[in-house]
């Protein structure tokens, strides 16, 4: 009861002259075939080698391109940008009114007007001081730090092709903290942002070297660094730098060193003044705005280094330049706020869900969203447990930890 096997089953021959056979081969014997060949759903003349170049009009010309076809989601981006700018302005005003001393938005406007020399001071000096000397600088610093961190996160995610990249997770913030703390202990406060930048740069270099070394050495440029190894390397670097920060404070501080340590490790905006606004805001303007113009370059990294190079990007130089810029920005931000985590992770991913991954939209919207986010989270940090104040990094970690977990679940392909 055995049946003939497939290998000995006679094969039905397709007639050589069959229309379909010829059309599908598409290489008419030595010359152009009469049969049309489907080219991705469009019927064009069959062409084979030797099918005369210039024999008849190329089929391409018969298909006019459709100019003006909208590519992407430009309009939506503009609407979001306007909406977020308005929301940021409103958030700043409202956040300033929130706190132990009750204030109205009108009071805030009055104070701003008085200090800008537009109107007469109408507030009592005490209330004016609360608005102008305490809350306004703090809220503005929060906005600048949030914007800067979100921007850094978005840029680092593109350059390392790692959805988990963020100044905090890759150790930059911890490195910056070490630099800042050492300078404070030595009493040369003017160098604070510089030292923080150097700390961030050292930490970045350490993380990338460690990750590249761990993934076999050929990844010096960072393009083939695997996300997991990079994050693990960042964890190692952050641990060491965090410990150094704690040691330096513990060894030198005379007063409330535990609180001081917490503020640097977890990040806090307590005690920020107009100098903080100048440092953080200045850094966001001076470094952030040039970063916005690199959107095209960051887009080109979407498919890796080779593809970026094929698109005309100077891969090594661009990556070094842009990563140094993020270290510089992180340094300035950490100098005023300590290492606030996860802002650079949460916001760019949230914004991507709305406008996609093109950096022309992603970078500015991430910055705006980061500013709004940190304004509100910091307002929570200083009011939720009034009169005690939480380091704001506790709240960002509380929100960011689950987001990190979600990203891990969603990106199952991460190695």
């Amino acid at each position, binding site marked *: *009861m*055995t*049946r*003939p*096997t497939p*290998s*000995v089953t006679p094969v039905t021959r397709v007639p*050589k002259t069959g229309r379909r056979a*010829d059309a*599908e*081969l*598409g*290489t008419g*014997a*030595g010359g152009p075939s009469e049969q049309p*060949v*489907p*080219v*991705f759903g*469009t019927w*064009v003349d*069959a*062409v*084979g*080698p*030797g099918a005369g*170049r210039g024999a008849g009009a*190329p*089929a*391409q010309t018969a*298909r006019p*391109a*459709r*100019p*003006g076809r*909208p*590519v*992407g989601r*430009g309009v939506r981006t503009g609407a979001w940008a306007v909406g977020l700018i308005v929301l940021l302005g409103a958030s700043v005003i409202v956040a300033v009114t929130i706190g132990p001393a009750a204030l109205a938005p009108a009071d805030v406007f009055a104070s701003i007007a008085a200090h800008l020399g537009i109107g007469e001071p109408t507030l009592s000096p005490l209330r004016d001081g609360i608005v102008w000397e305490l809350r306004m600088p703090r809220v503005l610093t929060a906005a600048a730090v949030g914007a800067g961190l979100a921007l850094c996160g978005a840029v680092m995610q593109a350059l390392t*092709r790692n959805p988990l990249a963020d100044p905090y997770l890759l150790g930059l913030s911890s490195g910056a903290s070490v630099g800042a703390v050492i300078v404070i202990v030595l009493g040369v406060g003017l160098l604070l942002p510089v030292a923080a930048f150097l700390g961030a740069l050292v930490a970045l270099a350490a993380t990338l070297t460690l990750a590249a070394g761990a993934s076999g050495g050929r990844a010096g440029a960072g393009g083939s660094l695997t996300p997991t190894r990079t994050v693990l390397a960042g964890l190692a670097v952050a641990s060491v730098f965090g410990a150094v920060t704690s040691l330096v404070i513990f060894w030198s501080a005379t007063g409330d060193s535990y609180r001081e340590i917490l503020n640097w490790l977890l990040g806090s905006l307590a005690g920020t003044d107009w100098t903080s606004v100048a440092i953080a805001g200045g850094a966001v303007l001076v470094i952030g705005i040039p970063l916005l*113009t690199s959107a*095209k370059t960051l*887009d*080109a990294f*979407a*498919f*890796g280094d*080779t*593809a970026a*190079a*094929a*698109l*005309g*990007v*100077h891969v090594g130089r661009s990556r070094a330049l842009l990563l140094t810029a993020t270290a510089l920005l992180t340094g300035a931000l950490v100098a005023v706020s300590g290492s606030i985590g996860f802002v650079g992770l949460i916001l760019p991913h949230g914004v991507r869900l709305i406008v*996609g*991954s*093109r950096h*022309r939209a992603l970078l500015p919207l991430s910055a705006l969203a980061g500013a709004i986010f940190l304004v509100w989270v910091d307002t929570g940090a200083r009011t939720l447990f009034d009169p005690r104040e939480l380091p704001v990094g506790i709240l960002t970690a509380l929100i960011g930890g689950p987001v990190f977990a979600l990203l891990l679940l969603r990106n199952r*392909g991460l190695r």
Partner: protein
Amino acid sequence: MTGAGHADGLRVDRVRFTRGNRLIIDDLDCTVPAGAVGALLGPNGAGKSTLLHLIAGIERADAGAARFGDRDLASLRRRDRARAIALAEQEVTDAPGLTVAEVVALGRTPHLGAFSGPSERDRAIVARGLEDAGLLDLADRDYGSLSGGERQRVNLARALAQEPQLLLLDEPTNHLDIRAQLTMLGLVRELARGGLTVLAALHDLSLAAAYADHVVVLAEGRVVAAGDPHAVLEPELIRDVWGVEASVIEHPATGRPLIAYAGIAGAPLPVPQPVPLPAPLPTGESLA
């Protein structure tokens, strides 16, 4: 796409490239005439991808030069080179969270200024690339949701959006079913008819013979044969380069060389023996 200045096509002159201590490309010469489809053949590790990368300027040769028309490619600025040459890699990377149209628009990168967004012309070229690759219906789909074959087409469309005069393809038919392979290569031929010069690394010798005007066979970083597929693809060469016994016959319908493999050199292909199938179950019984 046609124009004066690159009438000679692509010429690679005594190019040498080492990575670490390993010589990957060894004094290599080859040419692809302008407006021709060139197939780059050779076993794995012969240096096909490296050669494409050298021509595209992604890696720098230690010696020698690649010229396209009268231009020395190494002396071009990166941006200018990216406007003249496009490379479509075989894609294995994960999705970057872009739509198909956005991925194709990446091909405009070397044409964009630092501050300006895409112009009407850029949009039109992207739309044209999408259309040429048959991707109009997929334009708003997420790149990550595409099949391997669709991704290959997107890569091709992205390369076309660069408006290159020289198109380099690294195994463009990988991951494609037979029909999609033929369609891909048919499109490439069509593009060459419009004046584009193409060099494609391929594995399938019969496909290369069917679609290429010119084949270049690499082995261990050197060109061992080049020219018309009829003349180059001989059984002796296939045995020497791939270690495979093959007959080269004429395709009954197209007249192109058709390579039929007989086995690895020294180990002929086993002749299939009839294998008895299990007896059918007696009627009325079930497997349960």
